[in-house]
Structure formats: C-alpha cells, structure tokens
C-alpha cells in the first residue's frame, strides 16, 4: 500500500500554527497519515484546499520551519489489533506509554514512534478451524490465551474468505502467517483497522440485559443495558471520574476500555497502580487483565486527544467482534469536543454554537452509534457499552456538548454539585436522572433478581419524589407542620438516601454491592416503612416510629461483607421494637 517517495507523496511545509500545519505540493486524501518535518512527526490530513493540504499534528510542533518536508504514507490513521492489547496503556494514537518510557525517559518527547503491539513477542496460537474448512470475514480461526482472557483470532473483516489450505498451531508473532487460504491469501494475527471507520457487524440487537455495575443507584434506579449508551455530566469535582472508574472496576463486562481524554495524568496513574491489585469479582483475576487504557492527558498534544476516542472505540469493537461484552468509558467527551473546537478554529472554519464546529452533533452521534449489542459477522454476539463523561462549563447543562449528547444517549446520570458538596456520593441526582432502558430490562430483573424487585424500585422512586414535594412545604413551614404520616415518609426517604443511594467508593466492602444485596437492603427499608405504617394506623406517633432504634443499624449493612445474619437480626429487632411499642 505504501506509495514510497514518488512524485506527490512528498511536499513541503508552508505554514505552522500550533498543532495545525499547511503543506504544498502533496498528493493526499482526507485522513491520510503523513510525516511532518525533518523529525517526521505524525500527522493526519484534515482539509484539502486548492494546492494546500492542511494537517493536524499529533506531536508538539515547536521549532518546525516552513520548507521542511512532508511525506504522505498513503495510509489512514489505524490501530494495530491482535494479542497484546490487554493490560496496555496507550496514548491517543496507540503508542504504548511503557515503551515510550524506555525510549525517551520520564517525559514525553516527540518524534518517537512505537507500534501498538509487540512484533517480537510470540503467542501460542491454537487453531479451532482446520484445513478444508470454509471461512468468511470475521470467522474465528483459533485462540490465544492472552491473559485470563482468551483472544479469538479472526479472519479480517474485509477479507473475501475462502477455503483454508493450511492452518497451523504453535508459537507465532503477530506478523507471522498462521493460516493460508486456497487463493493464496495469508492471514496473520495482526489486523490494522482505520479508527474512524466502524468495524462491520451482521445485525444490531435490542439491548435487554443490564450491565450490572455493583453501584446501587445505577443498577437499582437508572440501569444501563449491555450495548447501551450513558452520559454522566457534572461540574468539576462532582464524581464523573470516580463513577467511571467504579464502572471500569466492577461492571460485569468482560473487557474494559478506559479512555482518559484530556484529563489528569495522576488519574491514569491511579488506575495503573490500582487495577493490577484489584480482583474481578467474577473471575478473581486482577482487573488489569481485562483492561486497555488510553491516556491522552490534558497537557499532551490536542490532536492526539481528538484521535484518542476513536482509538479506544476501535479496540472496543475488536473485542466485541470476538463475542465479548465490552464497556468503554470516555473521560471526558467535553475535552474531545474542545479538541475539535481548537482544531476547527485553527482551520478558520465558521464556528457554530459557543465556537464548537457545526459538525459537533454529527461527530458525537457517530461515536455513540458505535455502541450496541450485536450479532457479529461470525455469528457470535457481543456488545460495546459506551459511558461518556461530560464536563459542562460552570456546571451548566444547557451548553452544546451536554445537550447534543443527551439527544443521543439513553441513560442520563446527572451529577449534582449540591450533593457532592455535602459528600452525598455518588452525587447522582435521583430526580433528574433517567434510564430509557428500564422497560426493556424489567423482564431480566424479574427473572434474575426477584419478581418483587420492579415494584420495590417503583416504590422507592415514589418515596423520593414525594419527599421532594414535601421538602418544598418544609422549606416554607418547617418539618413539624407536616401531617404525621408525611413525617414518616420523610424519614423513610432519608433512609433510602443514606442507606441505599449513598455508596462509598473507598470503602472496601461498600465499593461493590451485588444485585442480591441491593435487593435485600431495599427490602429491609421497605419492611421498616410497612411496619411504621401499620404502627401509625394503630395510633403510634411519628416520634415513636422514627425513634425505632434498630433501624439505625441498617446503615452498617453496607460496610458488612457477610451481612445476612446481621440483616436478619435487624429485621427481627425492628419487629420486636414495633411489637413492644404496640403493647405499651
């Protein structure tokens, strides 16, 4: 494919303006990857205008001069896909950060390239197909034990397929041929795929299985489906990153792709140090073994930040093609949008709302559209769930990135500075948030949790809504003025908030709450509410009902691992206290 250095593949720089440079005399197509300047910095063609080719450069352009050469590789920006992705940490253009430390030390300098995968490492390939079998694009030829995850080696999606002439097991690098088709096509484990193009699937399915996250407010009140999309907008410090990291840690996806897009370096380091230590609750293996990290921090080149989101989703799609459930976190899509804005303004494009390019909405929807639960080309089914953080300026959700995102995604977890300031975490506002998957997931909860779960959920939401109405009255007249019954509603709502909704990501036990425990906790709160109601009908005062001591123990259940005996005891104690009250 490489055009080499014949005429037109090489041009010269004419202008350098930050990350955007202009070349003349270059034959290029949109999104071709080019090498810029004497140091051969990596760039991508983003505009062609007359004889000018406009290029965004993925590395710092300081010192580059007009007249330096530009060379077109003729390839588009692509990632390397194959064994070796898992446990890696990449920058926005899939350079492994670990390799970069070896090559250039502790700081990221420029002009160093490094392939996304090791081309030396040998992997043990075990064929699952044999000579004579017919294969088509996407079909699984065999497997490699990559970590505890089995990597499925597939026929590339654009291959014509055919009959297998030869396939051999053994130790191979990603470049070596593992399979030859009758027509002479050689297949290696390595696939390259252009990041801006979605990988093909056979069919999209309706998401009807929840992505269980172990976070009570998410699983319990606003669940996301496997293959679904969610946005988590909130002002700074409200909990976007912690929530995304919680999902990366505890959600029951088989593969996690975590993109730190224009955010903090230390946050990526935290993931890097924590994940190898934490165990996947399902497999008991280190979480890192199922994780791919993309880190293009806020001070790394802005064009590579723009690319990082595509790099991430392409890797996610690749694992989906193997039949895995993948979840992808992008923190933060606002920084991605800002990168688009910065490039667009350097191109002197006509700005849309708040300076963002007019194509912002289109780019966002194209990105989220790459999520989904699908039937793959090879008939396996897999999913990519996408959870995007949004960082609205001033915490104001009416800005373009939040608004355009909300028009696409199906789940909205609205972070609220008021809640985070009082350390109610996760600071997700239960009145503004929603999940459009609820109806589709009801059946799963009926079947897998309990037929009682859905009514219990509706009850809890009802109490919380009622509380909000009552709070308005309280603000005017004080809580003592409420009718007796409502005073107890306020207490029950407080219990739902403090016991069920609040969840401490830093408590060893509370950080992950299995669905069964969520159900038990909510049921216990409801049990108190029912006992209270009965007692009130029998003439008990709100003070008496609220004064039940044993219910205060419920909150400790969160921090208790084997909680069942304790919960049983609380239930009995509550009943006994209410009995005693009636007797008195």
């Amino acid at each position, binding site marked *: 494919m490489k055009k080499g250095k014949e005429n037109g593949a090489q041009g010269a720089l004419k202008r350098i303006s930050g990350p955007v440079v202009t070349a003349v005399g270059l034959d290029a197509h949109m999104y071709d990857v080019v090498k810029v300047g004497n140091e051969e910095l990596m760039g991508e063609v983003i505009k062609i205008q007359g004889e000018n080719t406009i290029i965004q450069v993925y590395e710092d352009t300081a010192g580059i001069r*007009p007249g330096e050469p530009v060379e077109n590789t003729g390839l588009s920006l692509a990632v390397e896909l194959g064994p070796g992705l898992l446990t890696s*940490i990449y920058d926005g253009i899939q350079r492994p950060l670990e390799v970069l430390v070896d090559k250039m030390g502790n700081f990221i300098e420029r002009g160093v390239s490094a392939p996304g995968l090791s081309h030396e490492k040998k992997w043990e390939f075990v064929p699952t197909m044999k000579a004579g079998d017919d294969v088509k694009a996407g079909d699984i030829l065999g497997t490699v034990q990559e970590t505890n995850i089995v990597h499925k080696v597939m026929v590339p999606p654009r291959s014509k397929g055919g009959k297998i002439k030869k396939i051999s097991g053994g130790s191979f690098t990603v470049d070596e041929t593992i399979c030859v088709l009758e027509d002479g096509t050689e297949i290696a484990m390595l696939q390259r795929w252009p990041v801006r193009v979605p990988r093909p699937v056979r069919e999209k399915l309706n998401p009807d299985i929840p992505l269980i996250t172990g976070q009570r407010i998410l699983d319990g009140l606003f669940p996301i489906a496997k293959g679904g999309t969610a946005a988590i907008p909130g002002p700074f410090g409200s909990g976007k990153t912690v929530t995304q990291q919680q999902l990366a840690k505890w959600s029951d996806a088989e593969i996690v792709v975590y993109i730190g897009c224009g955010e903090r370096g230390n946050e990526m380091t935290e993931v890097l140090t924590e994940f190898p230590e934490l165990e996947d609750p399902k497999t008991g293996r280190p979480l890192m073994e199922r994780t791919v990290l993309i880190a293009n921090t806020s001070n790394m080149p802005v064009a590579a930040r723009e690319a990082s989101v595509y790099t991430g989703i392409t890797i996610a799609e690749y694992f989906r093609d193997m039949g895995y459930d993948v979840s992808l976190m992008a923190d933060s899509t606002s920084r991605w949008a800002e990168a688009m804005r910065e490039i667009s303004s350097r191109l002197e494009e006509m700005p849309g709302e708040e300076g963002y390019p007019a194509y912002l909405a289109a780019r966002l929807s194209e990105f989220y559209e790459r999520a989904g639960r699908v039937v793959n080309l090879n008939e396996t089914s897999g999913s990519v769930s996408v959870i995007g953080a949004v960082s609205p300026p001033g915490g104001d959700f009416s800005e373009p990135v939040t608004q355009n995102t909300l028009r696409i995604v199906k789940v909205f977890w609205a972070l609220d500075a008021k809640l985070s300031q009082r*350390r109610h975490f996760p600071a997700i506002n239960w009145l503004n948030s929603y999940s459009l998957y609820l109806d589709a997931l009801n059946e799963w909860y009926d079947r897998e949790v309990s037929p009682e779960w859905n009514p219990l959920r509706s009850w809890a939401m009802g109490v919380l809504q009622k509380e909000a109405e009552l709070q308005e009255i309280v603000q005017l007249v*004080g809580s003592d*003025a409420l009718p007796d019954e409502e005073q107890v509603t306020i207490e029950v709502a407080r219990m739902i908030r403090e016991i069920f909704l609040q969840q401490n990501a830093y408590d060893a036990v509370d950080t992950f709450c299995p669905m069964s425990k969520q159900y038990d906790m909510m049921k216990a709160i409801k049990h108190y509410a029912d006992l209270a109601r009965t007692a009130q009908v029998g003439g008990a005062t709100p003070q008496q009902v609220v004064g039940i001591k044993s219910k205060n123990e419920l909150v400790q259940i969160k921090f208790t691992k084997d909680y069942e005996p304790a919960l049983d005891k609380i239930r009995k104690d509550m009943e006994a206290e209410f009995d005693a009250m009636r007797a008195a």
Partner: protein
Amino acid sequence: MKEYRTIAQIAGPLVFVEKTEPVGYSELVNIVTADGTIKRGQVLDTSDEIVVVQVFETTAGIGRDSGIRFTGETIKMPVGKDMLGRILSGGGKPIDGGPEIVPEKRLETTGAAINPYARAPPADFIQTGISTIDGTNTLVRGQKLPIFSASGLPHNDVALQIARQAKVPGSTEEFAVVFAAMGITREEANYFMADFEKTGALERAVVFLNLADDPAVERIITPRLALTTAEYLAFDLGYHVLVILTDMTNYCEALRQIGAAREEVPGRRGYPGYMYTDLASIYERAGIIKGVKGSVTQIPILTMPGDDITHPIPDLTGYITEGQIVVNRELHRKGIYAPINVLPSLSRLMNLGIGKGHTREDHKKVSDQLYAAYAEGNDLRGLVAIVGKDALSDRDRMFLEFADLFEDRFVRQGLYEDRSIEETLDLGWDLLATLPEEQLVRIDRELIQKYHPKYRKQAQG
C-alpha cells in the same frame, strides 16, 4: 545572526514580520529597538509569507526601524544549583543585584508532559497545621491544589501559613519553595518576601516577580519559568518543591489579551477557547516520578471575579487541578480565620494520603461525617431565616448548632496555630460527640467505639 527590518504590522503585543527565511514555530525572538533595547518574543505562527511574534514586554518603542532576530531555538531557562535564595524578574533575569545565574543546564520552558506510566501516585500526607485542610481537604506531596479566593480576602495569609507550616511528619527530606508572582502589587509581593525572610524560607526559595506594573504579556512565561525551575530542583536535585503561583487570574487576563490581539474567536467571557489546554500545560506540571527522589506540589492562587466560582478562570482550573480550597467572604465577615468554606472545597488525592499508615484509620470517616453534619446544619440556616428556630425539629436544632460550633472551633484558628493531625481529628470527634451517636451514620461502629470521646473516657475511666 540575520536581522530583519521587515515589520509589516504591530497590533497589541503582536508583531508581524514579512519576507523572512524559514522561521521555526515557537522560536525565541529578539527585537532590537532604535535605542538598542532588546525585547524578547516568541513565534506564534510561521509561514513563508508572514511570521507572527508575540512580544513579552511592552511594544512601546518598537517600530518599522526595529530589528528582528530569530534565534533559531525555543525559549530556554538557564538553571543551576545557585538559584536558591535568588529573586528573578517575571522574565527570569536576576533583580536582586546578585550575579547572573551560572547555568548548569538550559531547559525547555514549555515542559514536556510527564508520561503517565512514569508517574507515581502521590500519597505522602503534608501536614499544613490548618484543620480545614489537613482534616477535611488533605494535601499530599505532588498534588496541585489551588486556593480559590476573591479580592479582599486573606488568601495570602493562608498560602503563607501553608508555606511556613507544611511538613511531612516523620520526614527530614529537603524541601524548597518556588514562588511566582504574576501581576500582583508591590505591596503584596513585599508581604510575601517579608514573611519568607522572617522565617528563613528565602534561603531555600526561588522567587519570580512579575508585578502589576510589569508587562502583562510577560505573565505568560513567568509560571513556565517557575515550573521549569521547580522541575529542575525536584527531578534533578531531589528537592520536594512547593510552587506558589499567584495570581492566576492575572495570567488568564494576559492570555485573553493575546487572543484578542490575534482576533481569535473568543470562548466564554472573551477568554480563548484553548484556555483549558493552556492552563493544563501549567497545572499538570506537578507530581512525582517513579524512582526519582523529589516532587513538585503546586498551590496556585486565583481570585474569582465577582466571587463567582463558575467564572471560566476558577471553573477551568477546577477541572484540571486535584481539588480546590475555597476562601469564603461570609466566614471572613464573621471574623473567622482561616475563612475556608469546606463545602465547595475538595482534595481529590486525599484518599491516597490518609488512613492507616498515613494519618489515622478514622480520618476518612470522620471527615465525611463532619461534612455531612456541617452541610445539613448549614442548609437549615436558610430555613431558620424563614420559619424561625421554633419550627425546627429537635434533630434539626442539633445540626444547626453543630454548624456554628464547627465554624467556631474547627474552622477558626490562629494565623500561627499549627495543629497536628491528631489534634485536628480529635477536635473533629469532640464536635461530633455533640450529636447523638446514631446520627453518625458515616462511621462504622468499630471506629466509633475506638475514637468517640464517650468510649475513650470509659476506656480511661
């Protein structure tokens, strides 16, 4: 070196030069005026037709007759061991009457990003002696934790108290201070210098002064010179460096000025759309590197225009830094020092630096409980204003009183009062003990029985 006299246009801090040989992007430029003064600038945009130079000093005196020299290299900062104790201008020139810096190295001022793979997670607790920081918004080594303040508030006192008292308990490692002033008044600068001198901190400090009457555009490089120095002290010489940058609001104003001169499409409130990225290239220069001895801890100070935390300057800062310490006018009016409002304050790295082996096992939970109780009491103040105290339930009244007590005892402390972390946490427990035990829902039973004053007294008595 070739000198051009081909200035085509001068607009604000920008000089447009034509008919040059190829000039590198970001290159350092010397501009020689008719009277022989040399002014420094940097290439913002370069092409075979026109080169745009941003001048770091006033453009007064620059004209068609000025000579332009392109140096062929990007801006470098000479650094050396003898920098400690020195006072430099905002452009990095000695202004204390002492000799030139003997450079051991000349470093790129833009500062490459630390490879996230090379970073070590910051986890060393820094005791500042201020309860609202140590107890509820803990600072750790390698963190960037700004002070959000507003005009007329004692943010300088807070910053100085931190600089005076900051220590890592149990550590005797060397530390240094890099202080960068951007557009502050001579009087404010003197206030800092006097305190540094009094406490002997000046000997292990490097001071960069760009004062209110110094060129605004110079402010663009001041923090970068300061951080380049800090990185050298930390990662080459092994110091633990505390960097104080004040006032970042003036820095952002200078950024806006350049954006306007370039006729860029402005972002929110006229600040450039790339301000987030630009600020990140400053704030992200903090941290710890695996296997390297020193560290860079940053305390930028900014004044929020109109006390508005949603203003683009605090907003974008908060999105980059690892929390913020918010100085509050209401507490200040009540006569409480240090007037830090803990509710909007945050330290994101706190969890790494506290707890068993760092501070004390009950730290996190005590902090959470103090927050929750104070927040609840504080909310009730609004309610009391409308319905009066009598309409409150007993529970509400307790929290209301707690909020007052919290401000009066936990927040309030002396300018020179240096509380140990144990004192701070015990004080927290004393306050929590005014609430019924079952209200302490954020703390597990075990810790209550170990640290609650009630049980401690029992254990002793």
